[in-house]
């Protein structure tokens, strides 16, 4: 079966420094895939390349068998890649509900040809549902700029879901969250429909092992190992690489 996403030999260079050096990655439909590794290993860069925000210097990215290497982030989002940023990226002067509406607009189904407002209404319905799902229904009318960090994170997840993603790229979603918020995030991710595949970059290994079925370790811009959480936990070089990076 064709994988949902496959990266082949992806390379990104900043001057003489190779942030990514020939990375191969395969994500299957509905897979919960984690990307771990020390700081500076290239995890965020790889998410950027897969999402289209960072152009690949070399290699190819295929989404459901189609080459999307040359497509920008907008075109990839329309093909079903959703993204959560390391620092929650929301539109600060828009209300929480408006944020989700705008995120949903490119993906909202237009009910009738002659009803241009129908699209917005569809998006508004989606927004109400999603805000309720991520636990922010009472904050719908508050400008996103006034939300706390954890609430912005929830909002950005709602925005990503509004894009009806087949693949969700999550960049350290637990960073800066309180214990309770992390718990809720984990539960939320566990309850995601199986139709949505996840690529999770996360430092908290407990979360990774609890949520993911596949783990890839990245170091110095190269994949070190890929396997089940159990395999990765048991592998010596991985532990060593990770310990060095964390220390």
């Amino acid at each position, binding site marked *: 079966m064709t994988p949902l996403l496959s990266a082949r030999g992806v390379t990104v260079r900043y001057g003489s420094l190779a942030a990514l050096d020939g990375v191969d990655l395969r994500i299957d439909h509905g897979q919960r895939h984690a990307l771990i590794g020390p700081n500076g290993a290239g995890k965020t860069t790889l998410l950027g390349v897969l999402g289209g925000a960072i152009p690949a210097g070399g290699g190819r990215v295929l989404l459901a068998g189609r080459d999307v290497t040359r497509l920008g982030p907008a*075109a990839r989002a329309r093909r079903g890649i959703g993204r959560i940023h390391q620092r929650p990226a929301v539109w600060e002067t828009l209300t929480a509900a408006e944020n989700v509406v705008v995120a949903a607009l490119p993906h909202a189904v237009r009910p009738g040809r002659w009803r241009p407002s129908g699209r917005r209404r569809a998006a508004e319905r989606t927004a109400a549902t999603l805000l309720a799902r991520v636990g922010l229904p009472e904050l719908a009318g508050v400008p996103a700029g006034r939300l706390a960090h954890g609430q912005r994170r929830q909002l950005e997840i709602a925005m990503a879901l509004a894009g009806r993603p087949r693949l969700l790229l999550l960049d350290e979603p637990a960073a800066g969250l309180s214990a309770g918020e992390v718990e809720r995030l984990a539960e939320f991710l566990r309850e995601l429909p199986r139709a949505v595949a996840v690529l999770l970059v996360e430092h908290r290994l407990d979360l990774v092992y609890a949520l993911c079925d596949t783990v890839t370790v990245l170091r110095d811009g190269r994949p070190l190992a890929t396997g089940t959480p159990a395999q990765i936990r048991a592998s010596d070089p991985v532990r060593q690489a990770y310990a060095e990076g964390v220390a």
Partner: protein
Amino acid sequence: MREQAVRALRRGVAAAVLAGLVLAPWAVDDYTAALLARTLALGLVAVSVALLTGVAGLPTLGQTAPYAAGAYTSAVLGGQVSDVGVVHLAVAAVAGAALAAVTVPLVVHARGVVVLMITLAVGELAVVLVGRWRSVTGGTDGLAGIAQVRPLWGMPVLATDRARYLYTLVVVAALVGLVLLVLRTRVGLLLRAGRDDEARLRASGHRVSLQVAGVHVAAGAVAGAAGSLLVVAQQYLSPADFGFETSALLLLGVVIGGAASVGGALVGAVLVVAGRDWLFGALPGHAPLVLGLAFVVTVYLLPGGGHRPPPVRGRLLPDVGTRRAAGERPAPTGARA
């Protein structure tokens, strides 16, 4: 509660201003009425500047270019097509939009101070062009003897300064209302979202370049329509109407008016332009000096510190003074189109 009070206050002020504007021509002489009409036309250009600078976060110093295109097209071509003002308006709006569309490739990928430079160069070049293209524009001598118009088919010709002023006022009110209505639809949401974080808009699947091009063309059409009003109000055109100083005055008005507020931009620009006109009458010879000082003082008095500056889309060249903490990732605006 407080927001409601502010909103009520704002509505009250708007109503009072509007009433004053309607009654104004009966309170002043013909010359002032003509001057006011011209000021209103400039206020409409300021609305187009606010649309780009404040709402969409694309600062511009070049809206005088579509303004000039609209004015000269309306004066030269409009007179040959018809003597109906609304037709002139349409012709001028199309001309302004067309000029903006031509310059879209220049600005669509640029952001921040680069847009300011490019738009300023475009605006200045447009003035040079107008000054040198004597056969059509009359060059620096100006274009006089422009035929009078009637607002709509079957209506009388606008023969007095008061009538011309009222026509200008009605058109400006209608167009500003239209702009405000459009901004209440998802168009407004998208523009504000793009100003807040353009990369996020792309990551959500929006075609940002198309939106940027669209707002440029729309702002060009508004400025072009304002050009047609200038022709009606002034019945004379010269390159001096579209100079560098005009761009700067409009920008000052827009910044005073609160950048992101279309109504505020209109009021701000009207105040600034009226102040300039008053200065040139009251202090002949000293006006540029005082005006320059007024710019400096205004900039210093503008709310700073805790006040959020009008946001500008992804800065290609971040301010040296406002730097992000070291070690953070580059801004997400580094994304490609």
